[in-house]
Structures are given as C-alpha cells and as structure tokens.
C-alpha cells in the first residue's frame, strides 16, 4: 500500500483495516445487507411460488406431479438474491472546503472508508462528487482490487460551486440507475432546501443514509462585534452586529436545521448520522455500522 496520497496515508489505511475487522466481527460470514433485493427466477434453491407455464419456457421447472393431479402445466419459481449497488455521494461544493480541518477532507475520508468496506464485501460501489450537479463520478466497482482506483478518484476531486442536491440527484438517477443504497455525505447547506434533494431520492425509490457533517466553528462561531460575513459558495456578503443574543439565536437556528434534516430522514425510515470534523472518522464509521443500515 504505497500508492496512497496525502489524504489516505498509512494511518488512514490502518484504520480501514481495523474497520474491516470490526465489520467482520459484527457480521461474520457473508455480508449482505438489507438493501439486497430478492429476484424471482426459474433457478435457485429457495422455492418462492407457482406460475402458469408459458410456451417456450424451460420445461425442467414444470411440476409434473401437479400436472398429473390437475392436468395443468405449472412451473415452480425460485428466489435468487441480487446485490444492490451502493451510491456514495459526497458534497464537493465550496462550503465543504471551509475551515482549517475541512469538511471536504473529512467527507472524502468517510466516503473512502465506506467504499473500502463495500468493496471488501463485494458490493458494487459508486463514488459521486456533487455540488450543483455531478462534479465527478467513479462508476460501479466491485472487489478489493478497486480500492486504489477509488482512493485516487477521491483525491482527484476538488471542491467548488454551490450545493444543489436536487439537480445533482435528478441528473444522476435519471440515467436508469438501479435501486440501491444512497449514502450522502454533506453539510446539507442547500439554498434551495435539502428536502428537494431528498424528495428526488424518494422519487427514484432510493434508500438513503445521510451523514451530516459540520465543523465546530459552524456551531459556535467566534466573531468580532461588527463583521462582514461572506458566503463561501455564493460570494455574497452581509454586515452583522454580533451580540451574545444573536450568537445564541444562531446556535439555535443551526440546531433546528440539523434537527430538520434528521427528522426528515427518520420520517422516511432512512439512516442519519451527525458529526463534527473533530470527531475521529473511524468512530463515525462505527456509528454508521451500529445503525445497521450499512452492514447486515
């Protein structure tokens, strides 16, 4: 493992190995999640149902005993498990690159970790960077050997633009994507409203796992009395007289925003994890695992 860049260093990779062990421990044997759909086919082991024989079908599945009793050609159907893809969306807008320890790096590490675990489990993993559209995409990959492709891809992505989840999801899923698990790692600071993006996922009947990231200074910013606030995405500015009361109101507003995102996810039965950038990312991944939506 010497091909990693500065983002995914040896320390990071060690943590991934640790996460892998933990994942195996939590779910020994074959790791298939709830998201895996069952497809009814003529081959398989587990009986599912009967069906009227149609001309041209393979006769090996005809239930001859039933034919002798009823004089009807009935075909036995079996269920076959089909793996569903994992779509890992990470926010690559300009707001994610703000601060000393950027949310963008943190999001990429989370994406890398989830991707690593998914690839180890032979899942089809898609990595998508988004802002006001799809910035960059690494199409579906499977197998451990794809890990380095994924890491290089994540390192190559740069943050820019505004957040527009609705546009990004619509653009991505309009191209006949299979249903799967959608992991969105973002700060959800979408001027158009995060609900529009989430509604779009609901429309495409995708299962969502939201990872909400924000930096500590976003929760309790330290600002001078008189300040000109500049929006990192829009470039607009606003003059603000900062008072303790205003800071309290802002913290309250921020908390409301987070609770709105979480509430929306809970309402739709989706997974939701909230974290700040000062939390070790492996702890966050374990938290994701414990929620049971990613590993089953």
């Amino acid at each position, binding site marked *: 493992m010497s091909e990693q860049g500065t983002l995914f260093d040896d320390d990071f990779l060690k943590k991934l190995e640790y996460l892998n062990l933990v994942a195996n421990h939590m779910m020994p044997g074959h790791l298939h999640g709830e998201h895996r759909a069952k497809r009814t086919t003529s081959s398989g082991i587990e009986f599912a149902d009967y069906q009227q024989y149609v001309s041209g079908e393979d006769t090996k599945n005809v239930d001859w005993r039933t034919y002798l009793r009823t004089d009807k050609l009935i075909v036995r159907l079996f269920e076959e498990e089909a793996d569903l893809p994992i779509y890992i969306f990470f926010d690559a807008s300009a*707001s*994610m690159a*703000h*601060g000393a320890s950027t*949310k963008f790096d943190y999001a990429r590490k989370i994406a890398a970790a989830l991707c690593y675990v998914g690839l180890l489990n032979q899942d089809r993993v898609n990595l998508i960077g988004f802002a006001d559209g799809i910035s960059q995409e690494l199409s579906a990959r499977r197998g451990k050997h794809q890990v380095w492709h994924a890491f290089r891809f994540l390192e190559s992505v740069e943050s820019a633009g505004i957040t527009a989840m609705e546009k990004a999801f619509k653009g991505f899923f309009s191209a006949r994507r299979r249903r799967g698990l959608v992991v969105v790692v973002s*700060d959800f*600071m979408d*001027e158009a409203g995060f609900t529009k993006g989430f509604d779009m996922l609901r429309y495409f009947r995708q299962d969502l796992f939201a990872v909400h990231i924000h*930096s500590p200074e*976003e929760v309790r*910013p330290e*600002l*001078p*009395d*008189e*300040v*000109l*606030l*500049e*929006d*990192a*995405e*829009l470039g*607009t*500015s*606003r*003059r*603000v*007289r*900062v*008072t*303790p*009361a*205003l800071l309290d*109101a*802002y913290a309250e*507003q*921020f908390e409301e*925003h987070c609770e709105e995102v979480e509430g929306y996810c809970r309402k739709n039965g989706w997974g939701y994890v909230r974290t700040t950038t000062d939390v070790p990312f492996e702890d966050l991944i374990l938290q994701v695992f414990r929620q049971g939506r990613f590993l089953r």
Partner: protein
Amino acid sequence: MIFLGVSAGMVGLLLGGTVATVVFLYWLKPPPQRVVVPSTMLWNRLLKEKKRNTLLDRLRWLISLMIALTIGLSVAAGIGRPELSAFGRDVRDITVVIDNSATMATRTADGFTRWEHAVARAGEILRQGSASGHFLILDTSGQAPPTEPGDRRSALEVLAGLTVSLGGESTFPDLLEGESEIFFVSDGVMVDEAPPEATLISVFEPAHNVGITAFNVEALPSDPARYYAFVQMKNASLVAKQITLRLSGSNEGGLRDTLTLPAGETRARAIDLSGFERGPVRAVVTTDSDAFVADDYAYDFLPIRRQTRVALVTRGNVYLENVLAQEPRVFLDVMSPADYSAQVSADVFVFDRFAPPEAPRGPALLFLPSDVEWLTRTLAVVEAPEVPGWNSDHPVLRFVALEDLRIDRAARVAMPTAGESSPQSSAGEARREPVAEVVVGDRSLPLVLVSEEPERMVRVSFALEDSNFPLHPGFPIFLSNTLGWLMDEQGALARSPGRIEVPLPMAAVTDLEGSHIVTWPLSDRTVFQAEQPGLYTVVAEDGRRLRVAVNLASTERTSVNDSGLASDEIGAASTVSARAEPGPSEELWVFLLVLALLLLVAEWVTYHRRLTV
C-alpha cells in the same frame, strides 16, 4: 436659561460642535472585519426574522447615537454652567444687611430666636434673586468680611458663618454706592440708622426679659476693707415681674433676694459681701418666661485684702507716716535709710527720697528716688511742671482726681525701653530694664511710672514736700490703691462679650471651669474671644495674673422691646428650618454631569452585555 460660565453664543457653538463631532464619529466607524463562512443561509434566515420582529433592533443605531449625543451635550452644556432657577426672574443685585446685635438672641414665641428668623429671611431674599446677580451679606457687628458683591453661594456661605454678637458696637455698615437693592433684617432695638432706601424687614416680636444691667464688686473708699456687690436689674418686659436675685461665691451658701419690678423699671442693690470669701462672685436673676438669657448672669471677682507689712524708709515724712498708719490693714515699720539693709523683710517697700543700691526683694513705691543702678537715670530737674494728664483707668489711680495737683519741681527721668540693658545688679546678674507705663504725665515728663518687671513698682518723680499731693483727698486713696496693686489685690477687669484684649503678653486664658480659651498674641497684649458672660483668668508666662469679668451688663441690650419696628408676621418653624447653609447647587452642571456619568455607566454595562450593539 442663563449660562454662568460662558456667553450664550459660545454655548451654542459648543453644543453645535459637540453634535457635529458625535455624529461625525458615529459615521466614522472603522470598517467591519471580513469573515468567510461556509454559508450565510442560516444567518440570512435568522437576521430576517430578527429584523422583522424587533423594533429595538431597527432603532438600535439611532438610540445609540441619541445616547452619545445626550452624553456629549450634557458635558458641553455643563461647561456653560446653566442655571434653571433663572427662569422668569430678573437679574438683581442684592445686598442684605443682617442685624446680629445682642438683642437678636431673644427667643420668640415659636421657640426660635430673632436671629434664626433673620437668617431664614435673609436666605429667602438671596434665593429670590437670579443666580447671575451679585449678592452681598453684611452685618452690624463687622463679622462679615468686607468684600465686593459676589455670587449667591458665597453670600449664603457668609450668612451661614455669622453669629449673634453679644458685645461690641452695633452699627449699620457703610455701603458702597450702587444699584444694589438693600434689605435690612433687624429687630430694630440696637440698630436703627438704616438708610431710607433700605427695605426694612422686621423680625421683632415682643418678649419677656429681666436682666442685670450693671454688676460690680467694689470696696467703699470710706471702708476699703469691706466689699459690696452693686447690682442693677431691669424688667424690660411689658408686664411686672417678680425677680429672684441670687449671689453665689466660692464658699457655700450665698445670698438670695426677691423683688417685684414693674414693667420697664430699673432697680439697684448694694449687697454686703462680708460673708463671702475671696474668689468669683456670680449674680443670677430669674423670673418666669425670660426670652433673653445672656443678661441673666453677671460675674466679678472679690479680692479680700489681708494684713500688709509695709517698710517705710524715709528721713521723716509726716504725710506718709500718718496716712499709712491710718490704713487699717497695714503693719507699718518706719526706718531711716541708714537702718535699711537688703535683709529687711516686708510685703511692700516705700522709699521716700531714697533708693537702696540694690533692688528690694518685693514691690516698691518710690517717691523721688536717688539715682541708683537699678533705676533709670534722672536727666534733669523741671521746675513747676504742668500735669498733662493721667490714666484714670489704671488701678493705682481709681477714684483719684489730679486736676488740682501742683508740683514745684520734679525729676525728668529716662523712660525705660524694651531691650535696653540696665546696669549690673549687685548679684552681677544681667537684667533687662523693666518696661514702664506712664500713669501721670507723659513720656517726655513721666511723673508717675508703674512697672511690673521684675517686681511691681510705682515710681513718683517728685517729692511729696514739693507738691500739694499729700493735701489732696485722693492721696490716701492713691496710697490704698497702690498698696492693693502692689500686692496684686486688684479686682477683675470689666469687659463686654466679644474680642477682649488684656495687657499681658503671651498669656493663657481659662474660664471658670478651667477650660482653656484660644488666645492670639498681639504685641505686648493677649487677645481672646469671650462670646458668653463669665469670669476669665489670664496668666502670663512670668506668673502675673489678671481676671476679666465679661458681662453683658447693658441697659440697651436688656431692653429687648425698645424697637422702633412693627412686629412682623414672623414665625413658622418651617420657615426657620430653611437655614442659610448653601444647599444643593441650583446650577444644572452637576446634574448634567451626573446624567452623563449615568449614561456612560449604562452604555458600558449594556455594551459589555451586548445589549446595545
């Protein structure tokens, strides 16, 4: 509104400049710090709600500017010393003359004194004028400093420092010509010469008073060993009064006399003090409802004479021998100059045309002494000198008239002066020439000199045979006075309350209770202030002692109802309670400064709590 500090134009400029400066500084705020945040989405939402909801937020900047303007304008206006009380008042210059003569201490029916009413009225008059006017407070006893008219506060301070003066002369003060309104607050008893332009304000109210108008302890010339207390009392009330007179001395007991005096009548008593011992004598008159207390007491001193051993050294003098032999308290020892030696012991020495070579060990009376070292020299002999005058106040000359004194010849002796060295005494001690006082004659021809250092001495510069003095009826009195003075048997000096000078340098003064009185040295005298009647003892550094009987003892002061003024409506206690002490300033600058300070504190507190920014 009137500004006391600067002109109205300057105040306008100051206020305008302050407003311009404050507003300019508000616009001149430094640019805000630029901070990049991930998103202003939440900020926009929050500020939109706050702006919509809070009126205070919308007015915050304006309120802050108003507060800053108020602070600045308060300070700027305070520099101009604005005065609110000037509203609706004309600028007036007021001079108030307040009568603080003795009778102003008379109590009125409401329990206050005429003086307290007068001070209250004077304060009211001062407050009627505009603060920008000029005010002057004067009094009839000269207590108020003779200054130019000043501001009201200074006048009120002067007024607060004035007191009733029981003694001294009370006259209407001289006023500078000007357009000042003059008010005279008085009871009209002791001062009635106010100028016609003065507005008279009466604090007179009839009062009951009985007082001692004269008190003296004296020995009769015909019987020098017996002392009498001469007491004169007056009923100054408008009704007859029963008076109780009590005399008390240093021994227990005393005398008591009761008499009834019709209104306005005066009566005298001569009371034999044979039963009294040497010491202070106090006379007290009491009656019901006495409104003026200061004249109810009087003091004097009773000097009891003892037997005196007198050594007369003469070659023969029938006048002296006979008169001294007649003195009932004198043990006389007559000797010739040849028999005299320094070892002769006596209480008083009388040298007739002789002087011993050394000063005697005691007080001495000398008639034309010969030239010796311890006396000043004889400069010349003057034939038939005139007697230019004498000091009848000196104890030696009390009741002695010298109009008909004829002298054939007298010695012109040198006047001893302070600091002049005298010849050496036999003991070889360096002694200072005594400072003498001329009691008969003048400094060019001192006929009788008295001195007190080192021993009391009376030096007569003519011989009795060379004058008709021995034939005078006052001669025995002179000898008796002289013996009494030489033995320090003098009574007390009679003085009125107030500033008192005593002829002793650097002396200490105590009252009857032994409390020390503050004194001031004045050349060869000592000055002290005696506000109340009493007997004061003055002791010089060299041990000389003097007593001063301070008594009101004045018919004029006791007559508290002899006023030419009508009785005004004086009197609510509430009026008097408005004392003349300078109260809180009526100028606004203090309040403006306090307002600015309060606003600054409020601004500071709210700023640190982030309430106003």
